[in-house]
């Protein structure tokens, strides 16, 4: 009695078909697995992009309303300094200048008061949506090691590193221009540039934190100034607190050229012929 063959012709064809399917299946899943080594960051979905664009528009409206009054405030303050009014409290001319300065300061606060709620809402929305993405993608979705691999652009991300956009930092330009630049950077960049996206997202988020803080302080100052105005009808000499608010508003809206600093210029690309140790991580 002969032992029956394990496979007849039809079994063999079935095996070949099965093998082909297995190979196809493996190929199908091998490609995404390779790509998964350099994870794609989803830091800027459409909703976040729209939030950034909207915040830029709101900032532009606020700037145009404030530009003239802040410029007047600067001129009046300079006039007080030039007239040496700080040492002449009893001089009627100086008293008049101080009163004008106080009135302009109130005017600035009033303009801000009418614009701030919209601005605050826009900033808060952008801040929250970015926080959510950062937490999900970089905070919970990455280990420290994958984070630095991502910042370096992965092992094979040299081409991406060469095309990284540069970011000029959080200060040194108008708030609306900053948002316009952020929007362009983010909307024009492909998802392959995940590393620089992490830096840009972090930069915008920290910018939002600072802006939100300034808005909160400014709103407090408006309340205080309104109370003072009701009590005194005049501010007299501009106080250090008032000066701080004016400086803060100017810095965040119109930029502070002295603190310009590039944050994320593209790094030098490593030489592809450089020695690679078997110990390299």
């Amino acid at each position: 009695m002969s032992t029956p063959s394990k496979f007849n012709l039809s079994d063999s064809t079935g095996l070949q078909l099965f093998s082909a399917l297995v190979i196809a299946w493996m190929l199908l899943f091998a490609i995404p697995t390779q790509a998964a080594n350099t994870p794609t960051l989803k830091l800027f979905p459409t909703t976040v992009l729209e939030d950034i664009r909207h915040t830029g528009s709101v900032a532009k409206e606020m700037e145009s309303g404030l530009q003239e009054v802040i410029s007047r405030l600067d001129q009046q303050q300079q006039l007080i300094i030039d007239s040496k009014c700080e040492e002449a409290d009893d001089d009627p001319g100086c008293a008049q200048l101080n009163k004008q300065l106080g009135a302009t300061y109130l005017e600035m606060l009033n303009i801000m008061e009418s614009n701030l709620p919209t601005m605050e809402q826009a900033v808060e929305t952008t801040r929250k949506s970015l926080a959510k993405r950062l937490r999900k993608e970089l905070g919970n979705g990455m280990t420290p090691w994958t984070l630095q691999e991502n910042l370096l652009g992965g092992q094979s991300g040299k081409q991406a590193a060469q095309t990284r956009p540069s970011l000029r930092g959080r200060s040194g330009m108008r708030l609306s221009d900053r948002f316009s630049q952020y929007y362009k950077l983010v909307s024009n960049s492909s998802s392959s540039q995940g590393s620089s996206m992490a830096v840009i997202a972090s930069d915008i988020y920290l910018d939002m934190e600072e802006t939100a803080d300034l808005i909160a302080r400014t709103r407090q100052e408006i309340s205080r100034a309104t109370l003072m105005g009701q009590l005194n009808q005049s501010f007299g000499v501009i106080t250090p607190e008032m000066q701080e608010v004016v400086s803060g508003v100017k810095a965040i809206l119109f930029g502070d050229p002295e603190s310009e600093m590039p944050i994320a210029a593209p790094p030098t690309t490593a030489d592809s012929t450089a020695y690679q140790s078997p110990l390299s991580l």
Partner: protein
Amino acid sequence: MNSTKALISAALFATVSFTAGCDTQPVKANACIPPQGYDLDVAVSQSKSDLSDVCSFQFDAYLERLMNIAESDPKPANKEKFSEFLLWSNQAGLLSKQQAKSIYNRYFNVKYVSLMGDYNNCSLTCPKQQEVLANMERELLDKERGLVKISRDTSSYQRADRLLKETELVLEATCTACGAN
């Protein structure tokens, strides 16, 4: 009488043998002096010879000396020499594979061994964010030594420097976001 002579001879022989046996030990102890000179290849060769014998406990001193010698003649090829030396150290049982990797990457790679871990950033890195960054700053000094002073690889050093700055920014934002639940 003869037996007395034989006894004395045996005692003398034993004493001489014992003294001669003691002689070899101080020579070995004195040999555990890290190599001198300025030729890295010769120094590596001598180090391997010493370390594979009784001087293994002096590994750190030998490595430090080799680095000093390499600093006197910085060139890209030094990176490979240190890689080979560390691999040999692992094979000779002086270092674990992990220790060899850690030393090599601390000095000669752009990536930071101070920024490692198996858990996510919110739970692992953020609670000790300042400590991690301080460790990275210290590691950058070692990278300056390995990449610039030993290997003359300034572009890699600049990448490491920029990576630290970017990590600082990204961690500040990410950790703030992690805490903003």
